[in-house]
């Protein structure tokens, strides 16, 4: 009986250790997006500053990088120069910023201070962010020329990470 108790104990402890090792290495906020490989949810949103609308469908034919961000998000400050620099260096790639839970004047001030190289759209009620399964900002989606989401990145992008994910959209 004692041997049986020992074996059961070892099995239980091994299972707990396995779960802890498997779980502790992961970011608890990371969400595997079910949208990868699926058509990007279409949207038509108003660009901050110009007042014009941008329709995602109209951008078909070239890779699109959709970056969700907000002026109240610290890592977005860190990421912004990378996105602006890459948007200037990659004219064949369409960059689109989508800001949610924010106001026009704050976004305008942010862009005036830190530069802008692509349309920044306002997702006033957060519906677009929900449709894309956005958990926190910044989050970036890479869409191929056919309009399919090929990659999602959570957190601030570096040029290396941006190019690594963009390659998936160019295949």
């Amino acid at each position, binding site marked *: 009986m004692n041997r049986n108790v020992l074996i059961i104990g070892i099995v239980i402890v091994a299972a707990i250790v396995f779960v802890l090792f498997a779980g502790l290495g992961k970011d608890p906020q990371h969400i595997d997006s079910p949208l990868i490989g699926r058509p990007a949810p279409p949207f038509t949103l108003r660009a901050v500053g110009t*007042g014009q609308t941008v329709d995602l469908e109209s951008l078909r034919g070239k890779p699109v990088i959709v970056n969700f961000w907000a002026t109240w998000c610290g890592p977005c400050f860190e990421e912004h120069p990378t996105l602006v620099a890459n948007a200037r260096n990659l004219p064949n790639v369409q960059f689109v910023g989508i800001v949610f*839970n924010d106001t026009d004047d704050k976004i305008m001030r942010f862009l005036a201070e830190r530069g802008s190289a692509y349309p920044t759209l306002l*997702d*006033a009620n957060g519906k677009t962010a929900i449709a894309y*399964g956005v958990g926190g900002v910044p989050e970036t989606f890479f869409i191929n020329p056919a309009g399919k989401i090929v990659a999602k990145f959570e957190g601030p992008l570096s040029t290396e990470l941006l190019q690594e994910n963009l390659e998936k959209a160019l295949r």
Partner: protein
Amino acid sequence: MIATLFLLALMQIKAPDAEQFVGPPQGTPLAGAQLERRAMEISSEIRCPVCQGLAIGDSPSQMAANMKEQVRELLARGYTENQILSYFEKSYGQFVLLKPKFQGVNAFVWILPVLALAAGFVLVITKAKKLEAAPAKIAAATDEAADDDPYLTRVREMVEKP
């Protein structure tokens, strides 16, 4: 002129719609107190993606407020609970459902507690049976031991001597 352009832009704004994910509404549009009650119930089944294990109904975050508003709007348009949960699942994955589905690895979440309960029940019954049998064994063993003990034999002889 600017105001006109702004109004025109507002009219053209179109966020992604649940219909693209789960088709047209399959239920009855809700309103008033019933709408609020169902919105609260469904909001308690959806995980807030920016919180630690909180339902959107319990979270004070703006993200959860947006999601709650979306639930309310979908109910008002006649979407069913299954359609609403399916819509959020299609964007966020099963992570967003606080009650995991009985499929794949998630099935263990439902099966393991029942198995653990059954194993515990079997263990308790087995132990109880052994404990029931134990006093008789102990008594028999004590009697045998008493017969072999020379000290007790001597005491018995002294007591039994007339």
